[in-house]
């Protein structure tokens, strides 16, 4: 009996103890904005928002999330009340996010759409509704090692000739370094050969029009085989671009994210368009980054205010340019002296003008793996480009349909 009584007594005693330690924290004030970004942009967003936060008295909290998980986290955590007000990410997230009901539309009164480059606004539209405020644009381009190729090739034939010469001299191992099996980086070459992913109709992407094995590409497919056979493209390239960085490749296709590394490497470089193939433009994918408003934002009003008064300004977009090395999406920011002075960006931007926004429809997710497999199979010599891309095209049609 004594034992039981003791137990009860201690229970009461500890209850008080425990409860004091477990009080529920009060709800955050609504005069704040919570933003999710990846690590790379976090400091920039925080700094560029500081002045506004000070003048309005609104707290801007920037939370770093894993880039790879942010989209799925917003979809699952948002409705549970654990999401942010705003998420910063690329436009090709919009389809999945909007289809899952995770985003709040941006209506025309909220931002002045005309102040943005039109294509960037289009990129953030899904089924005719705008779901984000764009702030910069990125695309791949051709990086030329000037020591191996003093000028940028004007045509693909010229690029191939440069490679043939260097190969004969034994000064290069690869002509054009593109990560093996990565469709994103191969897109300029792929489009130059006449391929495409989805056809474009007046209302957006035509999901039933798959161009992985388009007529034009089918006619050119053997050219892709030839590029691997001649060693212009390599089966052992990867995201490290080892050959280019070791000075053993005259050209590589990559984006602004590698600029820092390129500058550190000390290689004398220039940025140029991937040249057209027999007159057909080599179009890169355009990625637009922007700020999206969560459907389940706790502070929608302050978040909307932030999108209007901070993101949609030239100052903010120029500030983000300075840390992010990407072309601003705001027209007046593009004309800013700091932006104009950067010749790398002029080069990226000039080439980007010919690009296509990456499809933001959820179906795009079904394309990457089969499309990439086709590039891998060709690189490894397991199949001809004709066979590999026909197979990929058939598989994607099945998966999408």
């Amino acid at each position, binding site marked *: 009996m004594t034992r039981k009584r003791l137990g009860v007594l201690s229970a009461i005693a500890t209850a008080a103890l425990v409860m004091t330690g477990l009080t529920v924290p009060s709800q955050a004030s609504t005069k704040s904005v919570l933003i999710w970004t*990846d690590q790379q942009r976090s400091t920039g967003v925080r700094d560029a928002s500081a002045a506004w936060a000070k003048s309005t008295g609104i707290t801007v909290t920037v939370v770093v999330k*894993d*880039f790879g998980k942010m989209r799925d986290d917003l979809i699952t955590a948002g409705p549970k009340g654990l999401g942010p007000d705003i998420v910063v990410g690329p436009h090709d997230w919009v389809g999945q996010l909007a289809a899952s009901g995770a985003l709040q539309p941006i209506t025309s009164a909220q931002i002045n759409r005309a102040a943005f480059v039109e294509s960037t606004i289009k990129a953030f539209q899904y089924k005719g509704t705008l779901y984000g405020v764009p702030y910069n644009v990125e695309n791949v381009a051709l990086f030329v090692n000037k020591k191996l190729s003093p000028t940028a090739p004007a045509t693909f034939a010229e690029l191939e000739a440069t490679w043939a010469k260097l190969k004969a001299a034994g000064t290069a191992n690869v002509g054009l370094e593109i990560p093996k099996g990565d469709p994103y980086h191969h897109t300029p070459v792929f489009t130059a050969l006449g391929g495409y992913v989805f056809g474009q109709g007046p209302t957006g992407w035509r999901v039933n029009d798959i161009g992985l094995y388009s007529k034009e590409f089918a006619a050119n497919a053997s050219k892709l085989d030839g590029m691997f056979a001649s060693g212009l493209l390599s089966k052992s390239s990867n995201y*490290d671009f080892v050959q280019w*960085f070791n000075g053993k490749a005259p050209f590589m296709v990559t984006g602004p994210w590698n600029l820092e590394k390129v500058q*550190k*490497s000390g290689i004398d470089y220039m940025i140029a368009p991937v040249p057209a193939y027999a007159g057909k433009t080599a179009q890169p994918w355009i990625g637009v980054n922007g700020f999206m408003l969560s459907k389940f934002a706790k502070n929608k009003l302050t978040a909307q205010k932030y999108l209007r008064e901070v993101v949609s300004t030239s100052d903010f977009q120029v500030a983000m340019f300075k840390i992010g090395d990407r072309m601003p999406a705001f027209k007046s920011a593009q004309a800013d002296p700091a932006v104009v002075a950067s010749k790398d960006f002029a080069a990226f931007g000039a080439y980007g003008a010919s690009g296509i926004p990456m499809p933001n429809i959820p179906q795009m997710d079904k394309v990457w793996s089969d499309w990439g497999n086709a590039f891998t199979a060709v690189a490894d010599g397991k199949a001809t480009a004709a066979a590999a891309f026909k197979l990929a095209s058939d598989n994607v049609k099945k998966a999408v349909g």
Partner: protein
Amino acid sequence: MTTIEQVIVKEKRMTTSRWLRVLGWRHLVAIFSISFALFPLVWMASASFDQLGLVSAQKLIPDNIGLDNYRKIFNNPEAPYFIWYRNAVVISLANALLQMAIGACASYALSRFRFQGRKVTLLTILVVQMFPQLLSVTALFVLLAEINQSIPTLSFGSPLALIIIFAGGALGVNAWILKGFFDTIPTEIDESAKVDGASHAQIFFKIILPLALPALAVIVLLSFIGTMNEFVLTSVIMGVTGDPNDLTLAVGLQRFIDGQYDQQWGPFAAGALLAAIPVMLLFLFLQKYVVSGLTAGATKG
């Protein structure tokens, strides 16, 4: 002490041929295995000193050698490496000890008592952890989101919640390892102690546990390593709050490589290599228990 060891100890010096026969080849095997084990690490180390972080460059001495990657992880307020390090070590140690405690208790019951549902428990433990873990994180997220409404202190961002959830896996392979080990301890030892009037707790703490030290040490180490490297669950629980000071090494370092195309393998490699140090230190420390096993205990018991 058993006799073989004593005999060897008594011999003052070995002849060279005997040394070769008894120990030499062991050194050879060890050195060969270590070369195999460390070989990939050499390339990781070289990538960590490569300013460009080219893991696949496969050059022993990188072209652009420097300490940039280490600087990136050491002075970066967005990526407080040492705080991650401390979090990882503290959480892993706490978890390892808890796992060991729960596992040892359960294994003692499973090894020494015949109770109803024992075989079912054993089989359940074996089978249930075969379930692919990749998706259970969705379930745990939903569970935590619900707890978060009521008891936020025991939910996202709480190391305690993380440790409790990890403890749910204590009855897994570890329990089987321990039970297998307990089974090899002769029951006569605890039978005779029982006759002498020892309680079940005394038998457990004073006899079984000391005898099982090698296995306990192994379990602690396995759990420690497992927690140090755990990414999926930790990132869900500690990553939701967004405070970089909440993260562990595995989750924090991941941020360097989770960009879409721009993955910074240099700092990642630097951080990951340094993270192996506590594991090695812990094992160095635990080894005295690994070898102090059954025989040493048996003479006492």
